């Protein structure tokens, strides 16, 4: 503290010296912080993936499913954000910063759509009108005796092969191919015609490890098209007590 003494400050006590230091550092701190005056993440974006032909929402997966890529403008480089889409095809992010974004659903279960520029503000709505690769139609999932039996038809909108079809089960309604504790799958590797009827059966007795008698589980049928990075197409899940 020798240099302090050279400043010729006379302290009445040790405490006073302490107070001097505290005041000095507080003054320093206060002058350094100014509240940032940017608005919080109050903007939101929500909407639904809609089948352009039928007007129905396009069913999705929450794990490893279609995602919406958001690229915020004004930053370069910028790390894109990804929004997960709910099983029923709807999505929402209510904690975005208001700004212009490039928005594009990517790696989806429908024919690719172009990116679009969107000025996201409070309550911004944005639906995507798409052509799903496959429409899963005439679905019936029922308990036949002790067996779960699903029948359905497939309508494909592109000429590619259908890789496989499957019946998936999970205790959570978000059941899907990447989220199943029991499954029955059939590899097709061929195109299908609209009137072909598919039947898949799942015997809960063969999956007693996960499917317990008396409990209710969600069952969902899906099909995968042979397109790079494509995701499964589904119809809504059905709850069945086994």
């Amino acid at each position, binding site marked *: 503290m*020798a240099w302090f*003494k*050279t400043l010729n400050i006379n302290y009445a006590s040790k405490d006073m010296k302490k107070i001097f230091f505290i005041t000095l550092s507080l003054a320093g701190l206060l002058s350094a912080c100014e509240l940032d005056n940017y608005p919080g993440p109050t903007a939101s974006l929500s909407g639904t993936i809609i089948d352009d032909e039928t007007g129905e929402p396009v069913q999705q997966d929450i*794990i*490893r499913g279609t*995602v919406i890529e958001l690229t915020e403008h004004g*930053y370069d*480089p*910028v*790390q*894109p954000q*990804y929004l997960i889409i709910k099983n029923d095809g709807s999505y929402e992010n209510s904690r975005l910063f208001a700004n212009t974004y490039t928005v594009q659903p*990517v*790696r989806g279960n429908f024919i690719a759509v172009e990116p679009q520029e969107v000025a996201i503000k409070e309550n911004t709505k944005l639906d995507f009108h798409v052509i799903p690769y496959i429409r899963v139609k005439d679905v019936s999932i029922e308990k036949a005796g002790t067996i779960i039996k699903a029948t359905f038809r497939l309508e494909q909108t592109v000429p590619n092969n259908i890789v496989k079809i499957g019946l998936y089960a999970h205790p959570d309604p978000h059941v899907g*191919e*990447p*989220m*199943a*504790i029991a*499954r029955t799958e059939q590899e097709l590797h061929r195109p299908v015609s609209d009137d072909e009827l598919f039947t898949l059966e799942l015997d809960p007795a*063969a*999956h*007693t*490890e996960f499917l317990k008698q008396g409990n209710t589980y969600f069952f969902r049928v899906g099909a995968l098209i042979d397109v*790079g*990075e494509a995701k499964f197409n589904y119809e809504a899940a059905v709850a069945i007590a086994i």
Partner: protein
Amino acid sequence: MKFKKLYIFLLFLLPAAGCNDVLDLEPLDKITQEDLFGDPEGTKLYMANLYRQLPIEDFTFFRQGFNQNGPGPNNGGFAPAMVTDEAVHSEFGDFLGDGDFNWWEAGYKLIRDVNLLIEAIPSLDILQEEKDAYIGETAFIRAYAYFALAKRYGGVPIITTQQQFEGDPEALKVPRSTEEETWDFVLAECDIAIENLGTQKGRRASKWAAYALKSRAALHAASVAKFGNRAPLSGDAVDQRLVGLDPSLAGKYYEASIAASEAIMSSGEFGLYKPTPESPEEAAENYRQLFEDPNIASEEAIFIKGHALPGDHQGHNYDIWFQPAQVANGWPHPGRMNPTLELVDLYESYDQPGEIAPIVTTADGDIHNYNGFNASRTYLRFEHPADIFEGKDARLRATAILPSSTWKGIPIIIQAGFIKPDGTPVIRTNDQVTVNGTTYYTFGAENTSQYSGFDTYGGNNTRTGFSFKKFMSTDPIVPGWNQSTSDFMDFRYAEILLNYAEAVIESSSPSGEAVAKAEKALNDIRTRAGHTVAIPLTIENVQRERRVELAFENKRLWDLIRRREYHTEFNSRMRRSLMPLLDLRTTPASYIFVRASVPNTNPHTFQPKSYYRPIPGIGGNGLVQNPQY
């Protein structure tokens, strides 16, 4: 007071003195490049530090990175094998996360350090041979570093000089090269190393280690080219070819791998350790010894990372983490490595060469039923738990500790429960029953120190039915951090043979001569394991042999990645256990086994984006991010 005035006077004098060079002192805790490399000993020291930074996937390689042997490296003993189908952790249910197995900043630090030496070599005051050796060694290190980057990130910025900061950070930014350019750079650096390094064996890089590196790296690149379409990715990084290789490139990389393996195979310098055992028992013991101390096998070991001394930054922790609970010797957290039933199933049976030999537990032979004990099924009964593994490849017993097998002189008790005489199953619930005056316990013994399986106590017991033997020291455990000093073979001859066999069978039109040579390579390894019947060279045979022979050598993670098999192998994937149960319905009591999912685990699904790791700090370094991050 007079003294103080003098002091103030001196203070005023200081700024004047500032114009002088009095203050331009060299820091005393740093050494200049000239002084360091001016002394040959200094260069050696510097080189030792480069070797230490080398990304060798040995016993100190965990998901957090390399050299995880600092003070108290408490990573839970979660080894790379546990994100694959080789093993599960006794407690953790984790899977591959975005933050795992990254190596970016440490990688570029090593690259900067090695570039600095590469630039200094021409000015070193040493003999030309010594300079050549340094040129070879530094190229080896740089190839090794870029290989580690390429297999994680795809194409990366290739920096070959020691960058100088001259006020403009933008001038330091180097864009990513394509994945093809990056692999080509790795292979070219290997070639410089091969050309300049000597043939001496030892702990330092040799011509052979450089060939081995090239064999491994080229095989990785070839596989990415051939199998990339199994998991297509999209995005800027793909469009700019920063990740992914065109399928047409597979041929040149397979050829490079084949040529590098061939150079080692035809050198006459290497062979398999104890290649012709008299019996499976002998084969098992030879194989076990090879990993307990690879220094006994100079014919097989191509490049060894040593752990010469116990202690922080020197020893490792495989023994304390992974030995079974009964031999913990006071260490509180043993038993973490639990080999899976899937791995155990893979080992061939001597009487059915060329096929996987799944453990059959029931009379109906159904090996796909994992629904747990079911009294209505007929289970096969065994007098001793070891009997069910009868006739399986010797390497199984040298890799895993099987239920009731002897390790360090004591029987390792692994039991999941018992069936009461009235048929009531007691499985993984602590209980006991007395039959004819003898008391039986769920886990095979009364106290936690007397068994090694299925009790969740402390996370110390296997939950797959198997404990871990490969690499384990037969010495008593020293219950402390970083006390293990076993050495690790980074490259060994068997891997080269398997790389060769894989590259030959996967390449488009191998010559008959190459196929014959590859088939011999495959079968030489099997002969060393006690097999007597040769099997043909097929993709399935090579992959099964690779998984068995190289199990737990931290190869499986990268094999799943490079062959793009991860997302199909891990799609809502449960890993499986074999539960030995004591059946008290018979007199004397017998053993039955239940194939089941590993208790208290969830299914795992691999995300295709994980074929590449996320590049950190793209806001600062301006690089194109990998897909989907």
